């Protein structure tokens, strides 16, 4: 197994762990963290393909990763703000209890 493949396998494993967390946890904050983990796995793929690609001096993978990290930071801030607002409304962060749209 080549070195690039091992990075891709690790990234797939990170993605699956994040997906499992996002699908199985009840706490909304931990679901958001699972989504962050999936974004991290994608970033790791960008960097691995950039490093093992034919022209690493073109910086494309690094730019993708930097912009992706910025979007993930904005998403985390807005997501946690929404969770705080939902908690103030329904007094819980349990996703199985937040099941009504109108409240």
């Amino acid at each position, binding site marked *: 197994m080549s070195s690039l493949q091992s990075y891709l396998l*690790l990234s797939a494993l990170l993605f699956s762990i994040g997906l499992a967390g996002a699908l199985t946890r009840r706490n909304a904050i931990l679901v958001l963290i699972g989504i962050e983990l999936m974004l991290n796995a994608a970033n790791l793929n960008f960097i691995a393909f950039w490093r093992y690609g034919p022209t690493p001096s073109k910086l494309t993978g690094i730019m993708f990763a930097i912009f992706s990290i910025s*979007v993930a930071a904005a998403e985390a801030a807005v997501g946690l703000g929404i969770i705080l607002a939902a908690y103030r409304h329904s007094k819980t962060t349990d996703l199985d209890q937040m099941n009504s749209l109108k409240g």
Partner: protein
Amino acid sequence: MTAAFLILATLTVAGTAAAMGLRNAVHCVLALTVGFAGVAALYLQLDAQFVGFTQVMVYVGAVAILAVFAIMMTHSPTPVPLPAYSRHWLAGSIVAAAVFAVLAWAIRAGSTSAPCLPPQPGISVQQIGDALMHRYVLPLEIMGLLLTAALIGAVVIAMDRKEESK
């Protein structure tokens, strides 16, 4: 595959698996910082120093702290602790395992010839800054706009409406 990669991969996978598996939410975030730091070290292994340190600053420094604050602010002392996993945890785990199986199969079957590692590119921060200011200046501006909108939006969403109506 070097020993450093194996150690870092083990650390990262252990940290993230603990972050998604532990019952206490604060312990989850603490394990998550270990996982994020492991990913940052993997970036350094791949000669992407700038992205590695950005990862440390943004994820370990900001996102994890933000998650800890959110857990503190939404902590409600319930007499009976709620179960940590959803009712559909079995289906979720099966879906995640299936996704990993498909990805791993595609990775193993995808490339038969091992790509050789090109020489170390030696990217300096100055080159990244040049690229951000010339070729990628429009995405950079859009990103600034997005971050501003997200900042204002997060404050507006999380603001307590009852206070202003009183």
